[in-house]
């Protein structure tokens, strides 16, 4: 037990890294998902095909493989990127694909009648998206979006395998030194649990706020 207390500062440091990685990857994945979803919905044939290919590849290949690929390829790359940034980009690219599907399904779930009514008033697609469709799509997208964010948080644990000092990596290091797997990995799991649980709470609150009709 005192081991746990002694390890707290180290674990806290790791937790901060995990939080940072998660937040950055979520932002990147969300932005990417929005762009790709719009392309998939409104883009021309070639753009749509490209997005489809990208989604198919990302969904069929493990995140770990992508991280390894980045890690091993980094020394050969022309551009100098820090592994942390590389990790965020890869995780963002990976989950961006999932976000795309979430946003696309949400927009498609808005009844056609809404589009028709807005067109009848003489509006064009961009205006309709912003004023009519977006709010209604957000209501649908909320829960699966939060779920995907939780997946991102859990996905950041894989950076421990390529040597980035997130909370999983720190935990593994401590365990290898002290051989106290239950307490330490329990603590690591607890960190993730708190972050993910907080996210799902936030999600439920947002859902309530968006759906509340005065």
């Amino acid at each position, binding site marked *: 037990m005192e081991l746990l207390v002694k390890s707290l500062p180290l674990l806290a440091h790791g937790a901060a890294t995990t939080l940072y990685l998660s937040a950055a990857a979520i932002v990147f994945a969300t932005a990417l998902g929005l762009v790709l979803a719009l392309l998939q919905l409104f883009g021309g044939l070639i753009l749509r095909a490209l997005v489809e290919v990208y989604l*198919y*590849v990302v*969904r*069929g*290949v*493990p*995140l*770990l*493989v992508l991280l*390894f*690929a980045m890690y*091993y*390829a980094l020394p*050969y790359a022309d551009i100098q990127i820090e592994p942390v940034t590389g990790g965020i980009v890869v995780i963002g690219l990976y989950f961006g694909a999932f976000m795309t599907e979430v946003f696309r399904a949400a927009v498609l779930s808005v009844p056609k009648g809404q589009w028709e009514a807005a067109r009848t008033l003489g509006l064009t697609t961009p205006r309709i998206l912003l004023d009519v469709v977006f709010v209604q799509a957000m209501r649908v997208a909320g829960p699966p979006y939060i779920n995907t964010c*939780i997946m991102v948080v*859990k*996905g950041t*644990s*894989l950076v*421990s*395998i390529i040597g980035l000092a997130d909370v*999983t990596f720190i*935990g*593994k290091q401590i*365990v290898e030194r002290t*051989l*106290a*797997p*239950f307490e330490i*990995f*329990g603590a*690591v*799991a607890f960190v*993730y*649990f708190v972050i*993910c*649980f907080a996210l*799902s709470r936030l999600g439920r609150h947002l859902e309530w706020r968006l759906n509340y009709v005065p």
Partner: protein
Amino acid sequence: MSIDLSFLTRVAPTLAEGLSTTILLAVPAILLSATWGIVVVMGLLSRFRLVADIARSYVEVVRNTPVLVQMFFIFFGSGFAGYPLSGFTAGLLALVLQNGAYMAEIYRGGIRGVSHRLAEAGLALGLTPRRSFGLIVLPIAIRNVIPPLSNQGVLIIKDTSLVATISVAELTFQARLLADRTAAVFEIFFTLALFYLVLTAIFSGCMRLLERRLRLA
């Protein structure tokens, strides 16, 4: 940058040594998760408050923690406790525990998703609640859950890559082995990605066949 294609034919065999392990891990993981998920969902839907609470807590803990951490917990924990499990077994256990919970949620959603009006129609015809469930709700729910189950199966196949970190010689482990020795990293990981794409494509294809069979039935 030009890719030396001939190297691919030299990379693939080494990777393929890990292929059997990947499949040997993925198939039981999928089947056992699906089965364990049934047990869990029965717990979730149980009339007994205690059982339902235990099931709910289990699902929440497992869904909010990374499967990698669970693997480490089981692998290192088992060794420490005196009953060391192999990386393969620990990995399998972690995969089943994690995905069983997700499968349970999928089952729950599938049952919920069948309109209760259909169950009512069964009751109106004179069926007991149990028969109405078994003859009407369940078949429809089974059809409904095939797509999300198929998704989950793909995730399981991909998650088998994680056991490479606990020294199980599957596909990704083999790739890393090669990558540590040679410089042709693009070729190695490109081939590795291809392997997974083919695996997931075959699996998805089989699930779609199953879907079509069930629709027509």
